[in-house]
């Protein structure tokens, strides 16, 4: 039993910290601190910055251009990125499609697509969920019919995050409607410039544009864009959903939020005294700080286990459930700390008129937006079902 990092890991942490200190442009960290939506330009430039260093594709093996990091190194990188208020890496190409192509793709697909992900030439988005298939993903209805050397897609995808920036989409489609649900699904790569595709924004609860609907009408996709075998898509989907779960607890982001909440509570006044001196608010902060401190260890314990076993186990669902609850509680505190000054619609007021301190004007919007975290990526209810079966065996 030893909670310390090895000297090599400590040195790695220093290296990452120094890299961010020296190379992350202030405008990027300022934009992250401000809490609004990031521009495509910022995300592109951040990716380029990491790619130049060889750190962009943290989960990829070296043979494909990844840094060859251990899970612990990836964890350290994520912590330090949060600490530096770096943007998040957009996961669709790097954390999702990349590993899929590495495992299921042809050599030709790997050679073609992977470098374009790293270079930023392709921005991928995800075509998984459908209006009628949320938690029950396998019930998806979007059809792809083989027609010569093409598939013809008809149907609709939804919750396509940052699709407005993307030029490619990977989709789960139904290629055989006559077999058991899970057995008739395929995984297709689709150029968004193909005729018949329409992407429409979905405005979210807080007013932001983050997700989209994608409509497919007789969209012809070359058969070579099939990944894996026809009707093997469910295997790929499951691989993708369980593959990259090391950052599922969002510990780094919660540490960031905790720091923000504490700074805010020292700054804002309530009843003539700094809010942090209000014992009820201070108790809320301390309570979630304790839960987060425990979650850090829970996360490391499961990381350690995953590293030993070679893959994360079903117990990572605990990280998803508790991690999102902690993150949401912190966003609640950040909003609560502001009192009425949380209420103005973000972006309407100049900084000198905004009653909220700088960087806090989006706190209510972030609270509402953050409710998604317990819904997407397998809702917390689905995670409880998984744990019921796997850990409790009920």
């Amino acid at each position, binding site marked *: 039993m030893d909670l310390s990092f090895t000297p090599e890991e400590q040195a790695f942490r220093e290296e990452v910290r120094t890299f961010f200190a020296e190379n992350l442009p202030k405008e990027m960290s300022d934009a992250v601190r401000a809490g609004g939506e990031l521009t495509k330009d910022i995300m592109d430039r951040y990716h380029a910055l990491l790619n130049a260093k060889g750190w962009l594709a943290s989960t990829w093996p070296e043979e494909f251009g990844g840094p060859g990091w251990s899970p612990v190194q990836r964890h350290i990188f994520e912590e330090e990125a949060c600490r530096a208020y770096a943007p998040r890496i957009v996961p669709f190409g790097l954390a999702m499609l990349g590993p899929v192509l590495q495992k299921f793709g042809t050599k030709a697909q790997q050679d073609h697509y992977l470098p374009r992900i790293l270079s930023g030439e392709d921005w991928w988005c995800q075509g998984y969920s459908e209006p009628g298939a949320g938690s029950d993903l396998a019930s998806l209805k979007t059809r792809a019919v083989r027609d010569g050397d093409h598939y013809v897609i008809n149907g609709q995808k939804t919750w396509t995050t940052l699709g407005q920036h993307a030029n490619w989409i990977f989709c789960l489609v139904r290629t055989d409607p006559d077999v058991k649900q899970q057995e008739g699904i395929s995984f297709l790569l689709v150029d968004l410039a193909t005729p018949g595709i329409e992407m429409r924004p*979905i405005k979210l609860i807080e007013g932001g544009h983050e997700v989209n609907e994608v409509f497919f009408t007789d969209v012809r996709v070359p058969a070579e864009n099939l990944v894996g075998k026809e009707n093997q898509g469910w295997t790929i989907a499951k691989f993708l959903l369980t593959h990259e779960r090391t950052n599922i607890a969002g510990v780094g982001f919660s540490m960031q939020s905790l720091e923000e909440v504490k700074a805010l509570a020292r700054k804002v*006044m309530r009843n*003539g005294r700094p809010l942090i001196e209000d014992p*009820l608010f201070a108790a809320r902060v301390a309570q979630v700080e304790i839960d987060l401190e425990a979650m850090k260890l829970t996360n490391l314990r499961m990381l350690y286990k995953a590293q030993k076993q070679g893959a994360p186990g079903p117990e990572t669902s605990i990280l998803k459930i508790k991690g999102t609850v902690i993150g949401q509680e912190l966003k609640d505190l950040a909003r*609560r700390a502001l009192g009425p000054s949380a209420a*103005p619609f973000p972006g309407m*007021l100049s900084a000198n008129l905004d009653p909220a301190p700088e960087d806090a004007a989006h706190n209510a919007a972030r609270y*509402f937006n953050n409710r*998604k975290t317990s*819904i997407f990526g397998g809702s917390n209810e689905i995670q409880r079902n998984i744990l019921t079966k796997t850990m409790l065996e009920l």
Partner: protein
Amino acid sequence: MDFDLTEDRQMLSDSLTRYLREKYPFEARNKAAYEAPYHSQAHWEALSELGTLYALAPEEAGGFGGSGFDISVVFEAMGGALCPEPVLGALMASRLLSAAGVDQDALLSGAEKYAVATGEIDAWYGLDAIGTQAKPAGDGYTLSGRKSVVYGGQAADQLLVAAELDGKVALFQVAADAASVNGYGMIDGGGAAEVILEDTPATLLLADAAEALADAANAGIVALCAEAVGAMDVLQQMTVEYLRTRKQFGVAIGKFQALQHRAVDMLTEIEQARSITIKAAAELGGPEAARYASMAKNLIGRAGRLVAEEAIQMHGGIAMTWEYPGSHYAKRLVMIDAQLGDTDYHLSRVMAA
């Protein structure tokens, strides 16, 4: 003991509810709530004509209501429709004008819109730390200071402003066009303003306004609690309806017991919220008004957050969208906590009592 509405109040409730449902449906509400001036003058006038504002004042002030139950009937109906009209300001101003013995015909007819400006960036909920200062000037006074997040301020004709005068909190009336009123929209709809006062001319209404402001706050709290109950009822109904119709894994998700039990817990907290609101309404104007107002606002703050968060979670993604009305109910229920004192502020008041 009688938990039924009087015939008059039932009629008011019905007519308001019907108006809001038929004439101010959700698309119209969202347009008014999120586009300047963050309410609708036409609907304001129509609601005024229905007697909404008269119901908030007693006969001696020219109204036909003014009790806690009159207030809760009006605001529960408004909450059910998420009505963004600045009626709360009218209610609180009416209490203050009554206390000052000032005529309020223009308020009750809806001809003039009032907003009450007490909160400041360093003094949101109490009166102790108010920084706005009053100075005698000629026959009257001038005010200097900043009032923050003045609900309804963006649309107000008149502002009632709390300011320090001779070591006491006094109440002044300021014509909105005499001040720098910077209006904006709110994340949950409706509007507010930052009001900058710089030697702004003002009329003194009450030299010692603490008691009147406390009464106005208590009335405002009853209103907000009733509004929340109205909104919770609707959001609960939406959620249950969604549970009945949305299918996953081949069955309606309302068949999943974990969701059933959580929906029951929502129902339970809503009934508790309704109860404490009735109690606060009954005590309004009496010696225990502040205590029960604090109890109510605390419970509403907790229940509102629970109902909002659980409704979103049980809906799933759809309730995360702007297009789905439920998301706006959820926002209102969360944000209402920050008006007139939040969960913790009011818990502290109950603890101190």
